[in-house]
C-alpha cells in the first residue's frame, strides 16, 4: 500500500537523484536510525566483552573483594601452567580431528551420493539430522553410549564377542579424549556432507561429459575434474570447520566436565572452571583473551594459506 501525497514527494526528493540510483546522502539520520540499533547491540554484547576481558586480565580478582592490578602476572602464570597447555593441546586435537574427520568423510560421502542414486533425499535428511540436534542432547546420549555398564558401545562389543575391548571410555584418561573426538566428528560430518553435496550440483555437466568422451574413468573424473571444481568450497569449509571446532564447550562440559584429571580439558572449559569454580576472575579473563588471540591467529593463518592456494 503506497500513499502518494504531495508533501511526501517533497520529502522524498532529497534522496532520489534521478539517475536510477537511490541514496540517502541528504538524510543521513535515516541511515543512522536504521543502522544504530543492530550496531549498538552488536558492539555492547559482542565486541565490548572482548575489551572487558582484556582489562580484567591484568587484575587479580575473586569476583567480590577489591581488585588489584598485577600487570602481566596472569599471562606469565598461564604460560607456566601445565593444565593450560594441556587444554591448548586438546583444543588443537579437536581442530585436527574435525578438519581431518569431518571434511574427508563428508567429501567422500558427497562424492558417492553425487552419482545420481535414487533415495538421495533420505541420505541427506538422515545425514544432516545430528547437526540440528542440541549439543546437550547429543552429549548426554553419547555419555550413555560410552557408559561402562549399560552403555551401547560395551553392549555391542559383548554381542560381537570383543568383550576384552570394553572399558569405561570416558572414565579413563587414556581413552576419554578420543571418545570425545569421535562424538565431535559424528556431530558435524553431516554439515560438510551437505555443503559438498550442494557444491557438487554446481559442477558444469559439460565438463564431465567431455571427460567421459575422452575416456576418463570415474576415479579420474572425480580427482581431475569434480574435486578441483569445488576447491573453493572445500577451502572455505576448512576455515568454517576450524572456527566451529574452536567453539567446543558444551559437549565437553556435559560429557566429562574436562575430567578425568583434566585429560579432556579444552581452553573454554578450563576458563570456566578457573573463573566460576576457582573464583579467579582475573585469570579466567586472561584465558578468555588467550582463546580469542589463539582463534584469531589460527583463522588468520588458514585464511592466508587458502588465499595463496586460490591464487
Amino acid at each position: 500500500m503506497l500513499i502518494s501525497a504531495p508533501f511526501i514527494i517533497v520529502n522524498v526528493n532529497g534522496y532520489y537523484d534521478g539517475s536510477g540510483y537511490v541514496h540517502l546522502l541528504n538524510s543521513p539520520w535515516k541511515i543512522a536510525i536504521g543502522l544504530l540499533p543492530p550496531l549498538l547491540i552488536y558492539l555492547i554484547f559482542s565486541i565490548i566483552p572482548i575489551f572487558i576481558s582484556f582489562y580484567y586480565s591484568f587484575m587479580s580478582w575473586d569476583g567480590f573483594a577489591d581488585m588489584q592490578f598485577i600487570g602481566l602476572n596472569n599471562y606469565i602464570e598461564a604460560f607456566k601452567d601445565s593444565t593450560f597447555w594441556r587444554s591448548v593441546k586438546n583444543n588443537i586435537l579437536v581442530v585436527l580431528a574435525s578438519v581431518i574427520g569431518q571434511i574427508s568423510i563428508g567429501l567422500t560421502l558427497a562424492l558417492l551420493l553425487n552419482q545420481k542414486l535414487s533415495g538421495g533425499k533420505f541420505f541427506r535428511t538422515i545425514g544432516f539430522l545430528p547437526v540440528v540436534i542440541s549439543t546437550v542432547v547429543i552429549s548426554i546420549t553419547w555419555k550413555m553410549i560410552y557408559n561402562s555398564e549399560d552403555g551401547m558401545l560395551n553392549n555391542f562389543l559383548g554381542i560381537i564377542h570383543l568383550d576384552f575391548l570394553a572399558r569405561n571410555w570416558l572414565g579413563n584418561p587414556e581413552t576419554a579424549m578420543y571418545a570425545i573426538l569421535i562424538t565431535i566428528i559424528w556431530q558435524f560430518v553431516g554439515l560438510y556432507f551437505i555443503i559438498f553435496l550442494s557444491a557438487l550440483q554446481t559442477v558444469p555437466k559439460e565438463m564431465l561429459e567431455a571427460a567421459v568422451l575422452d575416456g576418463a574413468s570415474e576415479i579420474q573424473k572425480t580427482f581431475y575434474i569434480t574435486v578441483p571444481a569445488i576447491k573453493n568450497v572445500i577451502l572455505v569449509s576448512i576455515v568454517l570447520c576450524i572456527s566451529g571446532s574452536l567453539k567446543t564447550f558444551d559437549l565437553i562440559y556435559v560429557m566429562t566436565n574436562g575430567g578425568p584429571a583434566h585429560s579432556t580439558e579444552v581452553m573454554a572449559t578450563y576458563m570456566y572452571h578457573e573463573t566460576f569454580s576457582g573464583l579467579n576472575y582475573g585469570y579466567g579473563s586472561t584465558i578468555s583473551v588467550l582463546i580469542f588471540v589463539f582463534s584469531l591467529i589460527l583463522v588468520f593463518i588458514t585464511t592466508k594459506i587458502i588465499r595463496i592456494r586460490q591464487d
Partner: protein
Amino acid sequence: MQTRKRQMDHSTTINIPGIKKRGRRTLIYLILLLFSIVNGYPIIWMVMNSFKSSQEFSLNPFGLPIDWIFTNFREAWFTANIGTFFFNSIFIGLTAVLIAVITGGLAAFFLSRFDFKGKKYLYGFLVVGLLIPIHSTLVPMYILMQNLGMLNTYWALIFPYVAFNLPITIFLLTSFMSTFPKEIEESAIMDGAGVFRIFWSIMLPMTKPAIATAVVINFINNWNEFAFALVLISDEALQTLPLGLANFAGAYTTNYPAQMAGLTIVLIPTIIFYLVMEKQIVEGMTQGAVKG
C-alpha cells in the same frame, strides 16, 4: 603412465556389461547405508529406550520395547520441570529472533540498497562476528551482565543471542536483497513512499525466503544454546531447556530410561521442526560456505 592406462581400460570394461556397474552401485549403497545407521541409530536407540522400564533396558538394550511404558515421560516432565524450561526456551528464543531479524533486516536494507561512506567497512565489521569464538566472551559477558544488573533475567540471554546471530542474519539478508533490480524502489519513490515504508511494504515481503531462512537459523541457534545460559542464569525458573536437561541428567545418572525420556521430549519437536523446515535449515547452515 601405465597405471593411468590400466585405469582407462578398467573404465571401458565397467561401461560395457553393466554388471560391474550394478556391483559398484550396491557397494555405494552399502556405504551410505552404514553411514545412515551410524548417524541415525544412536538417536533411535535413545528414543526407543525411553519407552522401556529400567529392567527391560538392561535386558534388551538394542531392540524395540516389548512393553511400551510412558511413566518415564511423566517422571521426566514433572521432576525436571520441563514445562517451565520449554516456555523459557520458546520465549527467549522467539524474542531474540524477532529483534535480530527486524534490526538485522533494517541494517541489511541500508547496506544493500543505499550508498554511503564507510559502507563496506561497516558490513565487514558486522559480518566478522561470525568468526568470534563465542566462548571467549563467557567471563566478560558475566561481568558485563552483573554490572548492567541483568544477571538472572530473560534479557541476560536475549541480548547476547541477538548479538551473536546478527552477523549471520545480516549476511543472509544483505546478499539476498542485493540481487533485486534497482527499479523496484524507483517506482515506489515516484509514488511518494518513504524509506521505512519501502522497507516495510516492499523489501520485507520480497525478502521472505531469506527471512524464513534467517528466522529458522536464529531460532535453532537460540534453542540449542547452552554456555551463556549456564553462566548467566542460575534461577531455576528462568532456565532454558538445554541447561535444565543437563542439570536433570546430572541428577538422574542412574535412571537411564528417565533421562532418555527427558531428552526425547526435547528431541521430538526439534525433529518435527527439522523435517518441516529442512530446506530453510539446510540453506541457512550451509550458505556461508557455498557462497563463500
